[in-house]
């Protein structure tokens, strides 16, 4: 059953998916991912939204484990954490496991009904 998909670390997947569901936030994440490190001011300059909005997006991305921050003096630099996308692979691989299990069941059933 799809129950298996529910047993994986759903909170983490939920956060990652939610974080990336918003196109602006996705663009912010991409901007971070394409730089080594970037601060809020520069993100704001290139994202077309207010600094407050950028900060909110950063908060979600941090919570989802997609970015990490490094304070330096009065500045905070952000950097992408690609490992944060890993739960999405788990999600897909659970559907993969779902069908593999079903194939095993099918093999058993066929032995029974078509010996």
């Amino acid at each position, binding site marked *: 059953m799809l129950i298996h998909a529910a047993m994986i670390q759903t909170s983490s997947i939920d956060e990652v998916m939610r974080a990336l569901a918003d196109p602006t936030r996705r663009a912010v994440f991409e901007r971070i991912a394409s730089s080594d490190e970037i601060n809020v001011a520069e993100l704001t300059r290139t994202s077309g939204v207010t600094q407050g909005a950028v900060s909110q997006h950063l908060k979600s991305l941090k919570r989802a484990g997609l970015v990490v921050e490094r304070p330096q003096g009065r500045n905070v630099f952000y950097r992408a954490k690609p490992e944060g996308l890993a739960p999405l692979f788990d999600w897909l691989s659970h559907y*993969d496991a779902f069908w593999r299990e079903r194939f095993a069941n099918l093999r058993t059933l066929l032995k029974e009904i078509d010996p």
Partner: protein
Amino acid sequence: MNTAALQTRAQEIVVDEAFPHAPEAIWRTLTSGELMGRWLGMEPSGFEPVAGNRFTYRTTSAGEWDGTIQCEALDVIPNERFAYSWKGGHEGNAGYGAPLDTVVTFTLEKVEGGTRLRLVHSGFVLPRNDTAYRNMSGGWNKVVPRIGAMTGEHASS
């Protein structure tokens, strides 16, 4: 600003295995509601093996999704090919129970001593980030081919 690098990409699941049974026997298990219930763990409602037929499966609910999987038989070629849409989920969910708009396709091929059964469950949309994964070991670029390799390994079992 590089907006093109983060895209969504449809992913598919492939399981490909040989069974020591004739295509006709396998076809029966794929297209009889009662037999489906026995191996899939979900018995369909309103199912008939006819293209255009709409049927449902019921699985575990999540949030506002009641667990109903809406299906439509797309392609029914006896002993050869059976494809149906698999839609479910709710926008209020992320992860399990998130909206799914996918297609399940079974292809049967007669081989020596039995049948090769190939399942493709396609249409999973995942965010993709090439830039973020470029330098990452065990990341997207590694995982996806690995899924492919796994299915390849199982093909002859």
